[in-house]
């Protein structure tokens, strides 16, 4: 693809075109709904196919930003419209564009009311997600980062479960409260560095005295988004109440925004504070891993259980990032991608039985394997992947993170590993109660196995889960160079200070 082609902008804003088309459709409600479904599906598939150009065209040997675009936006203020991807972000763009069509397909029948608005929300959400991972300007990043809240708030609030209003409000206000502190940090950087361009900011040295403050301002936002213990409480509520596809996007992409923020801003811009407060992050991460795993063990609601397991997995991710080792960071990024695929798939699995029985209560089920063997097989695959069975996606990332943590501090590694053991316990316990046992409930006897549409939704996720587990280097190779460059810069910054101190 020729260098001048604005691929990233196209990926970002094409969904909006789809949304505009859906918005302009008028007519009978049923026809409009069907039109909206197809338009949204085709838009998102086209976006996904276009985004494959990133997969094939990305130069893995370079740590530089690629596919960059720059347009003046507010030149007086040093704010530009600057897009680009490097190894850290390119796969997340692909993850977003890949999950969106699956989500739209998964909502094909389960969303029956206000289909038009639902599809518009999803396409706007895709714009915000892709834009956020591509933005190379702080203000632009913030715009997308916050913009995500609007469609997600509506998705949870309009199409969610019984306590949807509470969950949507909590989701919005928690995230907003964290983000505005980040806004102040962004403003500080803006007028002190005189630019909001991210590559240019990397060259700016933030005074050491201020780094701690900025670090906490960024932390306030990212910790809520990740979410880290103790600000994770919005997540179970949001997940439980959101419609299935909303949960998939929430777990698959939105949680990654926080961790991505750490990698993109906290580490490179604030090396001292990052190093200084790494023990704090370790503590919070280990607490998150063990505590939320124990909580997950006690859940009666399938979605809540998986939501808590997400918090635990994200604890592994933050742990890995702050080890400042190549394994740890690569492992963290890999875990994020794997978690995006696997937990998304698990939420879809819950959605499958929810659509049929309209209950997420674990005790409502039992013996489902007898009537839905295909479903049982898929659910098992993703359960194993979530546990981190070798040969599946999660194993690679978690393994790398634990190794890296061991190098830094065996206790931290021990804490992280405990989480993996507990993870096996709660996931297997869930699986046993839902799938195995006697088929006693009369209404479960008539359940139909997966439909062709559902197989289509799951197929890519199965392929990805196994591919990532068996041949991880086709993914790792994307971000290894960038991680190495990030670490080299981080160490150089610390060393300069050490020399100056002597």
């Amino acid at each position: 693809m020729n260098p001048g082609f604005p691929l990233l902008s196209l990926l970002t804003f094409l969904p909006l075109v789809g949304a505009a088309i859906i918005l302009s459709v008028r007519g009978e409600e049923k026809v409009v709904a069907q039109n909206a479904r197809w338009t949204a599906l085709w838009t998102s598939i086209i976006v996904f196919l276009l985004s494959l150009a990133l997969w094939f065209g990305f130069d893995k040997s370079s740590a530089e930003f690629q596919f960059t675009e720059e347009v003046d936006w507010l030149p007086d203020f040093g704010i530009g419209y600057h897009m680009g991807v490097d190894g850290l972000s390119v796969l997340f763009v692909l993850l977003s564009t890949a999950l969106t069509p699956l989500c739209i397909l998964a909502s094909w029948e389960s969303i029956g009311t206000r289909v038009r608005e639902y599809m518009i929300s999803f396409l706007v959400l895709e714009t915000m997600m892709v834009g956020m991972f591509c933005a190379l300007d702080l203000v632009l990043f913030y715009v997308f980062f916050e913009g995500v809240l609007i469609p997600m708030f509506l998705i949870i609030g309009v199409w969610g479960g019984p306590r949807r209003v509470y969950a949507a409000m909590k989701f919005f206000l928690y995230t907003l409260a964290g983000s505005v502190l980040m806004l102040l940090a962004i403003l500080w950087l803006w007028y002190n560095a005189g630019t909001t361009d991210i590559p240019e900011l990397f060259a700016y040295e933030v005074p050491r005295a201020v780094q701690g403050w900025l670090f906490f301002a960024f932390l306030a936002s990212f910790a809520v988004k990740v979410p880290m213990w103790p600000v994770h409480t919005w997540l179970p509520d949001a997940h439980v109440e959101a419609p299935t596809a909303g949960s998939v996007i929430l777990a698959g992409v939105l949680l990654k925004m926080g961790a991505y923020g750490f990698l993109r801003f906290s580490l490179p811009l604030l090396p001292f504070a990052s190093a200084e407060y790494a023990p704090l992050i370790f503590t919070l991460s280990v607490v998150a891993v063990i505590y939320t795993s124990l909580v997950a063990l006690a859940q009666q609601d399938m979605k809540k259980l998986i939501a808590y397991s997400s918090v635990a997995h994200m604890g592994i991710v933050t742990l890995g990032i702050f080890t400042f080792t190549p394994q740890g960071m690569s492992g963290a990024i890999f875990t994020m991608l794997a978690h995006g695929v696997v937990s998304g798939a698990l939420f879809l699995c819950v959605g499958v039985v929810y659509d049929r029985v309209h209950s997420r209560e674990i005790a409502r089920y039992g013996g489902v394997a007898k009537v839905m063997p295909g479903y049982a097989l898929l659910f098992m695959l993703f359960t194993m992947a979530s546990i981190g069975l070798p040969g599946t996606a999660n194993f690679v990332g978690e393994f790398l993170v634990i190794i890296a943590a061991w190098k830094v501090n065996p206790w931290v590694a021990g804490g992280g590993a405990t989480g993996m053991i507990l993870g096996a316990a709660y996931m297997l316990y869930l699986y046993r109660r839902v799938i195995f046992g006697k088929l006693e409930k009369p209404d479960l006897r008539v359940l139909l196995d997966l439909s062709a549409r559902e197989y289509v939704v799951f197929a890519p996720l199965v392929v990805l889960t196994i591919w990532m587990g068996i041949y991880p280097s086709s993914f790792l190779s994307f971000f290894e160079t960038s991680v190495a460059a990030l670490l080299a810069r981080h160490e150089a910054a610390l060393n300069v200070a050490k020399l100056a101190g002597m």
Partner: protein
Amino acid sequence: MNWTLALPEILLAVSGLVILLACVIPKQDTAYGGSMAVIGALLGAAILVLMQDDGTAFSGQYIADPFGRFMKLLCLAGAAATLLLAIDFNEREKLARFEFPLLALFATTGMMVMISANDLMSVYIGLELLSLPLYVIAAFNRDSGRSAEAGLKYFVLGALASGLLLYGTSLVYGFAGSTNFDKLAEAFAPGQPVSAGVVVGLVFVIAGLAFKASAVPFHMWTPDVYEGAPTPVTAFFAAAPKVAAIALIVRVLTGPFADLSDQWQQVLLLISAASMLLGSFAAIGQRNIKRLMAYSSIGHVGYALMGLSVDTDVGVRGVLIYMAIYLIMNVGTFAVLVSMRRQGKSVELIDDLAGLGRSHPGTAMWMAIFMFSMAGVPPLAGFFGKLYVFLAAMQAGYLWLALIGVGTSVIGGYYYLRIIKVMYFDSTEQPLDAATPGVGLVMAGSGLFNVLFILWPAPLIGAAQLAVAALVG
């Protein structure tokens, strides 16, 4: 004497008299024609404002500069848009009388005089020319007890504020020997001793102006008047006069009293912080949407004054950008409120909006955009308004003020979200009536501005920059 500088004001005043005569004489109903003529006059004045030269007139009483032009255009646009909203509402509520647009026209003339004031005397004349028509139109629905109460309350408190302003003016005149802004600026130049009398007078002037802008602690009238007055009148109150009052505060404090910033800055910091806090906390419990908008506007004035209180060029520019965006958001929101009626009857509780997302998706979408924008969620315009004032506060080292600002915007987020919640998440058996095309047009125009501002912010920001450069010199 170059009286031609004041042509926009002269045009408004003369056409006001002509329209008055033309409307009184015919026997039939002239309300619609009157409204249209007034909107035409406002547009004419806007064109004249755009063609205006810089300079002073009337022995230095009147000044024409880019700052004035920026603010006058905002006021004229706000007044014209709210009059457009009023036409249909007044007809349905049997309030359609030609006096309404005329009074609005005279009030707008007052705003223009205020904005162009270069002397404490013309400040007072402009302010009174603005206030008297406002007292009357607050009580315009004379058969309604609430409306009459609103008018009376506004009048009594407004008279008190005018008294404060006059008293302050007389003190300043007594101690500085002039009321002309240029001469005052000389008298207060750095190095000159500052007498206590001037400081007392200055505080009284600020109090009088803060009343018009409804900043805490001079906000008490706002919720009652907003609630009691007919909705289009509230829309008018919330838009143009607010911009004019903020413009006047900026003009007075950065002009003659610029070198006394040590004295007024702390007052403004306090007013700004208190307005933001009260605006966000007091709005939480409101059930009437007009009352909620009153508290919301108090909060917005707090954000706008944040830019002025840090006393930097960037801050003043932030004020101008904020007011422009505020005006457009507000006009759009009130377009929705004006169209709130069930089976022909006007309703104004938040719960009346229930189910709007289903019954009128278009109106609900615009309203949601205005609410998200007021809450300051990007990528909408309201976010950029806040961005510039927060930037100014951070740059000037007022981190605490910025922290209050972001804290209150999260709290504000709660009640704006509540409206969206009611519209989309709740349902109702009795949907509201559809909005009329004219009102829908105002909604769509304002909504599109909010959505598209991000694409092309440069013109507004450039114009604000130019205006500030003229003001600060």
